[in-house]
């Protein structure tokens, strides 16, 4: 960036303190920087993908204070003081681990571009599902309906989420 650029109102930076994948992050960001671009461009967490940048495809889904959000629709400054978890931050999360194994077994991914968003949404679905409600196929399809996959036809994804939900102990094959 040139010297004049630093004076441009467009480039004006705002201080931001947040937590990403359990680590405190303090930096100055342009006020208009999206959360997705903060994660990808500033923090190099490229597992969060951008499929539309207008809130429809779900590829950019991350957790903010444990709830799924579309990181393309939030400004980075909106996560001030909050805790952001991306697919990278779910590396050791047992629910996500089970979903991943099941996704591979059921061919729930082809190009893999939608996959991180799917994993975040499915992790929230399983972790926060009220026990009194059945976590069945209809529920999985409805909850995942904001995540688009252009490759798989969803069959493997739905099976994988059901399998991961059904057998928290081992994640082994569940016929059903």
């Amino acid at each position, binding site marked *: 960036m040139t010297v004049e*650029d630093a004076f441009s109102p*467009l480039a004006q930076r705002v201080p931001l303190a947040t937590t990403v994948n359990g680590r405190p992050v303090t930096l100055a960001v342009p006020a208009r920087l999206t959360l997705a671009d903060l994660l990808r461009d500033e923090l190099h967490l490229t597992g969060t993908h951008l499929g539309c940048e207008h809130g429809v495809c779900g590829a950019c889904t991350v957790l903010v204070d444990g709830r799924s959000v579309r990181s393309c629709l939030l400004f980075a400054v909106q996560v001030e003081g909050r805790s952001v978890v991306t697919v990278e931050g779910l590396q050791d999360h047992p629910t996500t681990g089970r979903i991943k194994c099941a996704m591979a077994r059921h061919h729930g991914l082809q190009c893999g571009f939608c996959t991180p968003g799917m994993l975040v949404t499915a992790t929230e679905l399983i972790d926060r599902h009220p026990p009194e409600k059945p976590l069945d196929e209809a529920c999985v399809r409805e909850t995942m309906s904001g995540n688009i996959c252009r490759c798989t036809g969803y069959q493997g994804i739905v099976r994988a989420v059901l399998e991961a939900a059904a057998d928290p102990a081992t994640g082994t094959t569940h016929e059903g």
Partner: protein
Amino acid sequence: MSAPPPRVTHGPGEPYVGTSVPRVEDQRLLDGRGRFLADLAAGALSVVFLRSTEAHAVIESIDTTRATDMPGVVGVYTGNDLPLARDYIGSLHTPDPGFVAATGFRMPEQRLAILPVDRVHYVGQPVVALVASDRYLGEDALEAVDITYRPLPAVLDPSASLAPDAAPIHPHLPDNEAGRIEVEFGDDVAADAVAVTVEGTYRIGRHGAVPLEGRGVLARVDGQRVSVWTSTQIPHLVRQGICEATGWSVDAVRVVVPDVGGGFGTKANVYAEEVVVPVLARLTGHDLVWVEDRQEHLVGSAQGRDQVHRTRLSVDREGRVLRWEDDFLLDIGAGGLWVAGVVANTAIHLLGPYRIPRVRLRGRAAFTNKTITAQYRGAGRPEACFALERSLDDAAGRLGITPVEIRRRNLLTAADLPYAQPLPYRDGVPIVYDGGDYLRCLDSVLELLPAETVERLAAEHPDLTIGHGVGCYIEATGRGSFESGRVRLTSTGGFEVASGAASAGQAHETVFAQVAADGLGCSLELVTVRRSDTDLVRHGVGTFASRSAVLAGSAIRRAAEQLLDQATGRAAQLLGVSPDLVKSTASGFAAADGSSEWEISWADLATACAPGGAQEQLGPLDVVEYFHPETVTWTMGAHAAVVGVHRGTGAVSVLSYAVAHEGGVEINPQVVEGQVIGGVAQGIGGALLEQFRYSPTGQPTSTTLAEYLLPGTCDVPDVQVRHLGVATPCNPLGVRGAGESGTIAVSATVAGAVEDALHGLVRVSETPIRTGPLRAAAEQIRREGQ
């Protein structure tokens, strides 16, 4: 939900081909460690494009002064600022002269400018490129580019575009015809033989690939060379496009394909951005990246379909087809580098998997002021299938027989196959369907999803009126001219495999490793498949038209076998025994002469041919093979669907779906099944949801994913797939392509099911299927208490 598919697992000593070994790609993609184009952007400056806001206009002036002074801007470039040898991208496919002679195929040369300076031809066409320190500042600066257009009338209707008095959209051409074809064979039919003739007009809407990852290009200059990373299916054709446009030598350009987030044909194209970004990298000396956003994608990336068919089908009293005529029109928008492919595909696949004695087909492609087109999954086949299958359903209805029955009476059976058509394929070789038994696919799909399913589902869904439909398709797969495969022994005794066929989610890293491991007789873990890179294989074509498993798979198989052969000789030499005593093992070679036994590993062989080794003078074990198929191999299949039409809204839900297809040997059955199921999902999108719409002045109105609707989890049911394998002698693996099998027959099948659900009160003759007329019919059924 039905049970998961049976897993074909791999046992010791068995071939890997034919088994669903887990995908090698999955771990990194699941961990968020994929490396897609945008993930490589760190350190590069951003390129952003100003795109035409006019469908058709003369550019009166472009003033970049204000934009150049904006913060963060490195440079602003029009077409006049690019040092190009040729300012357009050439055709990607020229049909064989034999095919041209037989079909009267003609097409003019297209010269859509890389960055136009005098005239724009569609909204979304790139006009100005701007380099900035980041995308935010770049997009700010785009707003300061001053450009004046003098609008010209936008031509949006292909018939109007082809009218004799229509002004040519492209000034170097005499008219707006982008291609034409004519196919005619068979004797005239006696009038008294005809029991029913049905005529129809069928429209297949404009929809397209819309992969979840858009396109993107990254260029880095390194001395005299430019390396280009691009989200493409066809790296070698991109290299060719860059070289033709710039005049650079192929040795000066390297094209590398990162992880690609879906392609489906729109990335099997060469784009202006793929030329402009490397040119600007050279001009500016910076690493540059352009990452397409979704809005750009929906106006600037190649679209597909958009055909109208005017048909006439005559059958005899038994429902046997006597005569089939179709006059079709394709709207290719402002340009389509694959127009020859789509026009020819449409004509050829109109022949269907049936016995049809008399055929008369004419096709024309028209230029309009809509977005450019390429080959979207199926590329003419789904359109042809829709016209023929809908006509068959119509004829069946008039005769009072079922849609299943009319197909049963016309499908080619084991007694007919192989079946020659009196026409050459696009490669000039006479068409011979090399199938086993097409009728078996219909029987099989009805076992999976019998018409009686309707009753059960009707009971479960009282708010819906339910129907059953079938559709059949044929698909030429594995088109030449060639594909490359390279296998080399690494210094540690592993193998590296590379090919010109780039992966966009088709699991090449897994399936090509299976093929190579079988050819080498080694364990799968020893094999690594590299992503496509023109430095790894100097020649190649790419992934499209269901060709990679067939062509690249065969090339890799042969390369692996040759490498094994060479290595066996070398092992014998090292061991000092005769080559016929040497046997390959999972880890290398063994030899025995009765009294003694020797072993030598692949790592030992690698050491022997490295500098200082005993076989240094023999050089590395590294084999490149090109596989040229004699001609295509044919896949056939039958689809069945049960759909429900909502009694109140007319909305269509696909409740159950099945595909039975006659493919070849499956390298990895789970991967093939995934291709078919994913293909069905895209077909459902095209049948019910997806459409690129334009305003009367040519403004695209489907510019977000809220308007261009992709099918979601609730739109796609579980799909049952049955594979009826018939190996083909056309290639060493016996494989047939399957990448498009899922998509082709969906619109036809769903349309048939919708008509059945509405007791024939509506005729479905266009996609996406409009719900208005369905609602009226559903309402009538409800009133009549049926």
